């Protein structure tokens, strides 16, 4: 049998719940596959769909977006905004011919280390089943360029 495909997954976490859930998974020594690399945001509401596109375009095979459970957002209700963006994003991806299943939204409170680890394990399997994402590469896109300053004449 050929070597197992090891997907690379970028995970966006909320500073208050899911990042802490990841911390808790660590403290509790819960094991999960090493395919996910986390980015800490202050809130899932900060999740700009561009980040997901950037990750997929940059070589990730999947993206996990995590936030506080509905009703438990540390910023009142911004995770609902993340949910809306997520739903929109999946449609956009589908439109681009990318399996929407490559992007997953997971709610995890700061107490749910085991849950987060289980979700990561599941997602890795799901992405593995989908196979590598061959995003067309465009040269000159290797590194993020800050947006050019606007030239404004008074």
């Amino acid at each position: 049998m050929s070597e197992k495909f090891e997907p690379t997954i970028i995970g966006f976490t909320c500073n208050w719940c899911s990042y802490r859930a990841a911390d808790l998974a660590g403290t509790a020594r819960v094991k999960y596959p090493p395919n996910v690399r986390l980015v800490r945001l202050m809130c899932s509401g900060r999740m700009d769909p561009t980040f997901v596109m950037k990750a997929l375009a940059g070589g990730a095979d999947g993206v996990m977006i995590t936030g506080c459970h509905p009703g438990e957002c540390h910023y009142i209700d911004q995770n609902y905004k993340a949910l809306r963006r997520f739903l929109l994003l999946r449609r956009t991806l589908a439109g681009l011919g990318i399996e929407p299943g490559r992007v997953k939204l997971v709610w995890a409170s700061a107490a749910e280390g085991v849950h987060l680890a289980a979700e990561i394990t599941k997602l890795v399997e799901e992405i593995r089943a989908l196979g590598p994402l061959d995003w067309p590469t465009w040269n000159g896109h290797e590194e993020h360029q800050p947006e050019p300053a606007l030239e404004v004449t008074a």
Partner: protein
Amino acid sequence: MSAEEKTPNKKPEKIGVYVCHCGSNIAGIVDVENVAKWAGEELAHKGVVIARDYKFMCSSLGQELIEKDIKEFGLDGVVVAACSPHLHEKTFRTATEKAGLNPYMCELVSIREQVSWVHTDKVAATEKSKAILSGGVHRVLYDEPLQEMKVPINPNTLVVGGGIAGIQAALEIANAGFHVYLVEREPSIGGHMAQFDKTFPTLDCSACILTPRMVEAGTHPNITLLTWSEVESVSGYVGNFNATIRKKARYVNEDLCTGCAVCIEKCPKKIIDDIYEAGLGYRKVVYTPFAQAVPKYPVIDRENCTYFQKGTCKACEKFCPTDAIDFNQEDELFNIEIGNIILATGYDLFDARKVTNYGYGRLANVFNSLEFERLSNAAGPTNGNIVLRDGKTTPKTVGIIHCVGSRDRNFNNYCSTICCMQSLKFAHLVKERTGAEVYEFYIDMRTAAKSYDEFYQRVLEEGTLMVRGKVAEVTDAARQPHEEGKLIIQVEDTFAGKQRRIPVDMVILSNGMEPRSDAKETAKKFGISCSADSWFIEKHPKLDPVSTMTEGVMIAGCASGPKDIPTSVAQGAAAAARVLDKILQKEVALEPIRATVDEIKCSGCRICNNLCPFNAISFIDDLAVTRINPALCQGCGTCVAACPAGAISGTGFSNEQILAQIDGLLMVA
């Protein structure tokens, strides 16, 4: 503002990388030397000039190593790969600052909680560590030096809720010499505690210990007592809140009223009092909830007042010796400025009618816990006589059911913590007053606080019959002659392993506590968060139980979850200490994680305008641009992500930083 000034700060050019062994915690799984070496070579093009590994980075020697390097190599960016930022970010930022570099130019990435502790494959773990470190290095390039913001603190405090927690908090602050506005929506302060008869485990009379506190709060020169009032809206931020208070029309002029209660005596209309008397007693339409009410001024209940309904009566007005009745009074709205807020809004009793198998509301002699408190209270509707719903028969057998609506996924999944002790107290009171046979039906006996278990022992000694089992049903459907006319409690006695049917005369349900029915709106009003159950969420459940995520808004008592009286009092005092700490500092530093609008890029589309739960975003009509109040902004970044023009940037979590971090994370396949 010219474009010139908007160019990003100079990117860091000399970056130091530090990989921690954490003893064997990290080094046991991750080849840390290899990671450091890799960073020194492969990330040199990103500006890494020094990459080290060290046994314990967080030790003073480790910190000194960073400080020395910053000075020696002129580092302008630092990346530490060690444990979670929630543990040691502050440590390394402080070290960075000590060496003269802005603390926000230091990044801590986690290769312990996210790598060595959760993975077993050494090669994969090492590779993942490299990726995470690379993410940090890419990110630090876009870090900007940030300054904490200082804002002055208004020394006045708003306390919402006049139960025991709120009273305690108000008194602590007032005694320290600062002004407090104590707002209570009922006509009197006192809260649930004022309804109780005895308090466990000491059995001292609730009124005896509470009333002096109420009087003190009512007369304290530093406390403005606003009863029959509610907070309408809140704006501002820590140190500088502005609250609008609605003082509901009392129809009694407080300046003239002497509290003689003649109006109450003369009022011809009696209605069921379902707040203070828990539906078990009556009150007049002009009333004070109870005799020792603070303040002493009565309130006219407009909805039930004959004059307001039919236009005639005015008995109270006729008999008032000081002409204090004023039917023309209207609600009053006014603003107060405060620096801090304490929410002590309390709890609601679980509605036992939801547990249909216990028959509350259908079977007359099933009582809930507040009803029983009133029934046993010497100042209650029966003068403390424990009798059946007919008002005269003394029960010979009483069953007390624990966990009603609590520890049950069909209702509330949490333990209400007070019900075991409350039930034991009921058992004692029933025994003492009636000599009846008392059964307690419990799942687990939870008496874990000072002197609580001793009280349990005492109740056992008194001969209360304990049955371990969650009651299945209370029914009046008799199966045997001896069950006729009784309430039958059907339960599995789990110690005996047998189903039992126990006929009793009276059933007392020990209802659990629930969040206030309007807790969600309250949370929204004050900009704090609620759990799915609607309890307010603490900043940290153990280490910061009276603060919230919103700076300057504290919580105390049952608003954050079920609590007994001692804990509520302790929380009231703790919240007050938190507030005093802020007041005495005279100003607070705010974390510089904020969103800002580049007004040149802002198209004025207003998409972001409705996104902010903290009302930090306002639209400037004249300029057709949006602005963010940095003191109100909590830094969640939702508006940053939403801005279609890319005009909003979030310090500490800018698009550049995050996109660069993604690049970095993906550098290692």
